[in-house]
């Protein structure tokens, strides 16, 4: 079951475990430069607003309504990362584990394969929460991702276009699979010490007024590959049989051009995020995250993926302003086993 709690997507499986609950936020962030270097993790600048597509049946395109799901606003060349938090299970000293599939334009962000529902037993096509607290982009090699960066659907910059040759879906697709209850009880037996469940608290978005009188813009965005970042996709530490086959929850996340957001929702989109250079100038923190255990290699289709910048050079366009290299001055080290509610936070 998927609900929205403000701008947090809450995926719960009350039939599996009353507290099997995963919270997902879509974090606004800086676009890291695409300059050949591997950057540390940029901060979260607050969650993107999330809305039910059904609430805007009168103004949203019919094919969005057919897909159902939610929507959020992104500017062209804006970046995002996904933050996963699962509730701590009282008495078990553990957070409930989930397998999470993430695709962009129905291309799997971990394997590069076209979307098919369900977990794959042969090639891991999911990340595991709580071990993997976030995902910032497409896995392009072991330990390296290319940042999720929004571009108008149909302009040819998306990973979907490169992998499938077509650009028709855009958006993000998610599927969440809980660990089987029996596997959870076996792996995380009850402990006597009691702890209280804790939820992640996210920074609310500051919405500000902007662009009036939109002349024309493509409303749908798709995700292309931005700059390179050091981020491991942790290998599944559990057995494949530990994951439930039913129930699962899936959701289409429509990425709406921020310039069209107001027309569709009547609400102002968030302001344009800081550039990496502006952020770094203030010596605000970047992050490195260390998890134990092996990491996944990239799927074949993603290994040679071209970034938006590389595609733009070939097309003779310049869709990414502000791409100067920066040297992160202040890097905060985070380790596996984050405190409840601990976030990658940066603010002016």
């Amino acid at each position, binding site marked *: 079951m*998927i609900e929205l709690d403000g701008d947090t*997507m809450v995926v719960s499986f009350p039939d599996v475990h009353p507290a099997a609950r995963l919270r997902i936020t879509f974090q606004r962030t800086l676009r890291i430069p695409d300059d050949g270097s591997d950057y540390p993790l940029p901060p979260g600048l607050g969650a993107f607003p999330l809305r039910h597509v059904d609430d805007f049946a009168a103004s949203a395109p019919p094919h969005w*309504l057919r*897909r*159902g799901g*939610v929507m959020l606003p992104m500017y062209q060349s804006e970046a995002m990362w996904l933050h996963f938090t699962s509730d701590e299970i009282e008495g078990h000293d553990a957070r409930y584990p989930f397998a999470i599939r993430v695709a962009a334009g129905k291309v799997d962000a971990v394997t590069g394969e076209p979307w098919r529902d369900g977990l794959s037993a042969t090639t891991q096509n999911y990340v595991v929460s709580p071990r993997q607290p976030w995902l910032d982009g497409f896995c392009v090699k072991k330990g390296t991702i290319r940042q999720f960066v929004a571009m108008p659907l149909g302009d040819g910059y998306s990973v979907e276009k490169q992998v499938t040759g077509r650009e028709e879906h855009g958006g993000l697709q998610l599927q969440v699979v809980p660990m089987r209850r029996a596997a959870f009880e076996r792996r995380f037996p009850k402990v006597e010490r009691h702890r209280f469940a804790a939820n992640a608290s996210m920074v609310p978005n500051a919405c500000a007024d902007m662009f009036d009188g939109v002349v024309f813009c493509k409303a749908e965005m798709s995700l292309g590959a931005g700059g390179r970042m050091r981020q491991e996709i942790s290998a599944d530490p559990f057995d494949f049989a530990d994951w439930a086959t039913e129930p699962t929850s899936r959701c*289409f996340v429509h990425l709406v051009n921020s310039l069209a957001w107001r027309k569709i929702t009547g609400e102002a989109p968030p302001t344009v995020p800081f550039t990496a250079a502006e952020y770094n100038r203030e010596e605000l923190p970047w992050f490195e995250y260390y998890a134990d255990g092996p990491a996944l290699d990239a799927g074949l289709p993603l290994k040679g993926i071209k970034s938006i910048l590389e595609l733009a050079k070939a097309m003779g366009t310049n869709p990414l302003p502000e791409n100067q290299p920066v040297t992160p001055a202040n890097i905060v080290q985070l380790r596996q086993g984050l405190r409840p509610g601990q976030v990658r936070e940066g603010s002016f």
Partner: protein
Amino acid sequence: MYDTLPIMPGEFGDYLRQRREALRADDPAFSLRRVAGRIGVEPSYLSKVERGEQPPPSEETVIRLAADLGEDPDVLLALAGKVSSDLLRIIRARPRLFADLLRQLRDMPEHAVLRLVREVRDGEW
């Protein structure tokens, strides 16, 4: 306008005085005069409201009172026989739907009401 419901005379005033006096026991800032000053009414008027000699004040004043005394504005409004105007707007936008819904929820136990959630709908993709 159907935003005023019949209430027990004096109920709102009694509650108000009780809460304010409890706060004043620890903090003189909650004297009748100072509370009235902060929420922008005459002390004599507030005194009459507390004694039930005047009907409860306007929605805006009740909300200011709730904020000043640290009370839940919806609860205080309900005691004053009012429904906040944002709720009225919600109902007026789809009166039939919400009237039906509220009547159905009337006798439902609290935990069941709390479990009423809106799911994100998954479609074809």
